[in-house]
């Protein structure tokens, strides 16, 4: 058997190929040791970072700050793991075997609990309280989010984004992947790199790039320096302030995200397409299928699961999009989306209740994906 020790769904005591005796003991004293050993590293890290004044002093040389951080963040953390591992060696074998996994996995779990699990619970609680967090208001914040026009516009736009962007990215990505597959090898990789490149650009950077496409000048106030208006006016149109055209401005913002994400879809789908067995396609062609039929009936079904994964990933990215809207329009002219509205509520209006309610809306929508991920993971584990 080449399988690693597999997690059992029922989590019962199992005799284990690599299991150490005592690993699954659960006496209270042992648990105390385990929790302690998990806490030490995050606690020391936090203490160090949060107390050393010079690291927080803007006057301190940046190079010194980076160096100290790397030395402590990597070297110091390694040293702590090492010291704790030594300490466990000194324990009686049975106790040590019970504690050691928590020396290894504990710090990560503690950090996750602090930075993701606790805040999620706290945000859910905040969403049930008023703007200042003073009193319980039940589901009032959610009622506002789902009835007031301001929030309904954000919701509408977010849904609109979440439907359109993944479809276009996957569609264009698939088309590009198929086309690239027909090119000679050298050309193919150059072509794919070009499409993939925007993936390395930040959303803020991409927004600046497209600001020079959508740029607008009132007629008579100089040449149009925006590409879109230059083309538009060359064909006889009047210059348009694209980002202020109701409803359509949302589409222009989506183009920015599509520009950065299509390369991702293309690269993943291209790898999947290359994995489709050639003899399967060959057999279809022999049976009289043309290229389109072979693609439609063989390639697409074979890569269906990859398409779903890519679609889901882009859906999640799209659903949480903040930077593009914040930088380009700040949510004005009916372009607000949920993730952007949320930040505005928190920081501009100091309305924590509604802000948190919007954050919960963000979470609730991705929850099915979360559940599916866990279920798929468990199935994979069961198969191993």
């Amino acid at each position, binding site marked *: 058997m080449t399988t*690693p020790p597999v997690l059992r769904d029922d*989590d019962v005591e199992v005799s284990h190929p*690599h*299991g150490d005796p005592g690993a*699954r003991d659960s006496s209270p004293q042992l648990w105390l040791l385990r929790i302690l050993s998990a806490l030490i*590293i995050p606690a020391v890290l936090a203490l160090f970072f*949060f107390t050393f004044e010079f690291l927080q002093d*803007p006057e301190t040389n*940046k190079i010194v*700050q*980076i160096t100290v*951080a*790397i030395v402590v*963040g*990597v070297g110091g953390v390694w040293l702590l793991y*090492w010291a704790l*591992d030594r300490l466990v060696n000194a324990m009686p074998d049975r106790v040590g075997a*019970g504690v050691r996994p928590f020396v290894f*996995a504990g710090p990560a779990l503690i950090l*996750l609990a*602090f*930075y993701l699990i*606790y805040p*999620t619970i706290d*945000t859910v609680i*905040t969403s049930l309280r008023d703007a200042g967090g003073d009193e319980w208001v039940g589901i009032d914040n959610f009622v506002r989010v789902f009835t007031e026009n301001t929030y309904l516009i954000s919701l509408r736009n977010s849904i609109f984004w979440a439907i359109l962007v993944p479809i276009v990215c996957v569609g264009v990505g698939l088309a590009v992947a198929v086309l690239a597959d027909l*090119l000679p090898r050298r050309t193919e990789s150059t072509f794919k790199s*070009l*499409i993939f490149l925007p993936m390395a*650009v930040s959303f*803020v950077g991409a*927004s*600046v790039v497209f600001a020079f*496409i959508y740029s607008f000048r009132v007629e008579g106030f100089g*040449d*149009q*320096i925006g*590409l879109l208006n230059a083309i538009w006016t060359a064909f006889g149109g009047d210059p348009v302030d694209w980002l202020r055209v109701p409803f359509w401005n949302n589409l222009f913002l989506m183009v920015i995200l599509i520009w950065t994400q299509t390369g991702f879809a293309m690269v*993943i789908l291209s*790898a999947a397409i290359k994995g489709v067995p050639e003899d399967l396609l060959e*057999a279809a*062609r*022999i049976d009289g299928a043309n290229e389109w039929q072979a693609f439609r009936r063989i390639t697409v079904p074979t890569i269906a699961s990859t398409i779903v*994964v890519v679609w889901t*990933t882009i859906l*999640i990215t799209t659903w*949480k999009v*903040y*930077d593009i809207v*914040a*930088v380009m329009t700040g949510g004005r002219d009916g372009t607000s989306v949920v993730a952007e509205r949320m*930040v505005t509520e*928190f*920081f501009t209006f100091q309305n*924590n209740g509604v802000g948190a309610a919007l*954050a919960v809306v*963000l979470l609730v929508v991705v929850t099915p994906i*979360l559940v599916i*991920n*866990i279920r798929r993971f468990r199935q994979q584990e069961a198969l191993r």
Partner: protein
Amino acid sequence: MTAVAQKPPPLPVVKDKSNSFVVAKTPVYLACLLIAVVWVIPALGILINSFRNPQAIQSTGWWTVIGEVFNPDTWTLQNYATVLDQGFGNAFANSLAVTIPAVAIPITVAAFAAYAFAWMDFPGRNLWFAAVVGLMVVPLQMALIPILRIYTVFDLTGSFPGLWLAHTGFGLPLAVYLLRNYMGSLPSSLIESAQIDGASHWTIFTRLILPLSTPVLAAFATLQFLWVWNDYLVALVFLGVANPDNAVITVELAGLQGQFGEGALNLLPAAAFVSMVLPLVVFFLLQRYFVRGLTAGSVKG
């Protein structure tokens, strides 16, 4: 695969296929060329603009350089000099100060955890790893206000360490997930024989598993680097507002973009490229690892 075994002599079919390829070739090239042009033009436009005279950027479109490519007056490095002088040099250093530890710390912590999840036995392992998988899609927006509240109490806003640990927390689910899956797929006979030779978990982890995991470590490092460098929201909330001196490059660029039309127009292209140069270099050098990380981690939220 009986269908393959029964395959008739394929000669005529192959000939047919090659014919159809000859016909299809030109449209394929044209379509690819069109897509490539559409995809490259937006970035090309501001790259050209970043090297033009400030007045030229303000008054005409970048495509007007076509007539004056060989005119030395067309090109200048002045925008880059101005931009670096006006805070973008400092912001670049800040971004480095944020990014390097925010990549190094989660990798270390995640590697230890991934080893435990893959090769150690402990109560609740199943449950906790499922939680890690679930946390991958939790929007980090959930964490902003609670963490900011705590940071405000301990006076951590506006300083780098708080941001390092925040990025560590947000990057950990993917890191643990990727590394654990990779480490778990290494042959167990390898670990068993090391154990028979009397190697401890520490030795197996540092001498055997970690060196073997270099590809996945590089993949995650590339992903996390691009993620942290390009991040705007986390840096804005925990750093930018409280202490403008420590603002990272995306925050600085977004601020400049906010002044669009008020004289910032000529600086934006150069500023944007200063912010993009490092991710682009990393992207080109480590594209292989980046793709591998993306493929393996495409379940992340």
